Structures are given as structure tokens and as C-alpha cells.
């Protein structure tokens, strides 16, 4: 009896764990997909050239992420969507604006100014460093 109960609990844990991952993935898929579709619609109604439209779209999505963060809405989306709200560029904007708001009690310079880059900083450090590396290789190969 005891053994069976243990096995049963194990089984429940295993399955609920699995379905949690599945549900999380489904939510991430839906929200991430919807965010990208919003960007595409905005991109498609812009009248400029393809290149300029792209820049406008990125700026618009950053603006949207920042605005929803300032209105305290983005955190709620994040609770539902998980990675679906982290991975799109709106999440990058959120990672800058959210600590900026949160750390203002620690001052303008070391609070807001420094904490803004708590996530964006590493992204830029490794993003830019890898492009310099890749650029160097590209430069040597194309000369």
C-alpha cells in the first residue's frame, strides 16, 4: 500500500511536471507568435522601403515593450507567457525599462543608470564581441 502510494505520487509528479512544460511551451508559442505577427502587420502597413520599414518596426516593438513595461502590463504578460515574452525584442526593452523603474530609489546614476543594463549589458557585450570576431573573419576572407 505504502509502496503503491509512493509510486502513485511519483507518477503524478512526473506527469504534472511534463504537462507543465507542455503548457508553458504552448503559452510561449502563442504569445511569442502573436508578438511577431503584430510586428509583421506594422511592418506591412508602413509606406517606406523594405530596409527602412524594418528599422521602424524594430523601434516600434521596442517602444511597445517599453510602454507596456511602464504601464506595469508587461510583467503580467510575462507571468503567462514565460519565454514568449522574454525572447522577442519587446522583452529586451522590458529588461532595460523594468530595472530602470525599480532601482530609482538607489539613485539616478548607480540605481537607474547602471541597473538598466543588468540584462542588456551582457547581451551587448557578447553580441558585439561575437560580431567583431565574425567580422574579422569575414574581412580576412573577402580581401
Amino acid at each position: 500500500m505504502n509502496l503503491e502510494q509512493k509510486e502513485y505520487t511519483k507518477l503524478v509528479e512526473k506527469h504534472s511536471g511534463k504537462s507543465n512544460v507542455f503548457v508553458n511551451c504552448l503559452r510561449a508559442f502563442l504569445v511569442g507568435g502573436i508578438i511577431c505577427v503584430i510586428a509583421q502587420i506594422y511592418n506591412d502597413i508602413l509606406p517606406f522601403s523594405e530596409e527602412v520599414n524594418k528599422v521602424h518596426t524594430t523601434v516600434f516593438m521596442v517602444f511597445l515593450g517599453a510602454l507596456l513595461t511602464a504601464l506595469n502590463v508587461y510583467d503580467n504578460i510575462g507571468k503567462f507567457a514565460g519565454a514568449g515574452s522574454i525572447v522577442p525584442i519587446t522583452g529586451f526593452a522590458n529588461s532595460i525599462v523594468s530595472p530602470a523603474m525599480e532601482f530609482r530609489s538607489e539613485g539616478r546614476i548607480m540605481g537607474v543608470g547602471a541597473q538598466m543594463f543588468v540584462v542588456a549589458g551582457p547581451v551587448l557585450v557578447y553580441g558585439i564581441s561575437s560580431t567583431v570576431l565574425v567580422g574579422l573573419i569575414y574581412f580576412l576572407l573577402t580581401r
Partner: protein
Amino acid sequence: MDTFLKYLAVFVTGGLLCVVAQILIDKTKLTSARILVLYVVTGVFLTAIGVYGKLVKIGRTGATIPLTGFGYALCKGVFKAIDEKGFVGILTGGLEAVASGIAMAIFFGLVASFVSKPKSKNS
């Protein structure tokens, strides 16, 4: 119908890129900062070997809006700058390509820190 399929490709591409991150978060407990770094660097290298450009053609914003697309923009910017300006392009191209988004986020962050208060996090 054609338009529908195009938007479906955007939805599925963007959705799947988020699902990969969700699996990484659930299975490996990676923090979101690590996920974002991983995504940008992956985006840079996939662009450099010519894979990500193909994904962008199919998934459009579904591929450019996730953070791998940030890496794509960085890498494409560097290549373009090298073609136009030579060696110095290695250093200028990346940031030039993503400057608008970063400037927007930074300025908005500063403004938000003045005018908006975060909800108290009791939970």
C-alpha cells in the same frame, strides 16, 4: 490565402523560437539573461554561416523580432559596413545596425524611471 500563409509562417517561426527558450528555461533553469545572451550569439553565428538569412526570408518578423534577430541585425550590419568601409566596419557596423532600438529602450527607460512606478512586488 497567400497572405494568410505568410502570416502563419511569421507566427510559427516566432512561436517556435520562443518554445526553444521555454524548454531551456524549464529543463536547465537558465536565467533569462543567459537565454538572451545565448540567443544573440547564436543569431550572430547562424547569420555568419548564411543559415539565418534563409529563415528570415520565410519567417520575416517571426525571425527578426526574437533576440536571434538582434544577432542577425548585428552581423548583417557588420558585413555591410566591411563591404562599404573596409576594416573599420568591423567595429562600426554592428552597433550602427541596432542603434535605433537601443537608443529607444534607453531613453524610454530613463523617462519611465521618472514618471512610472513599478507595482509593489509582494508575492
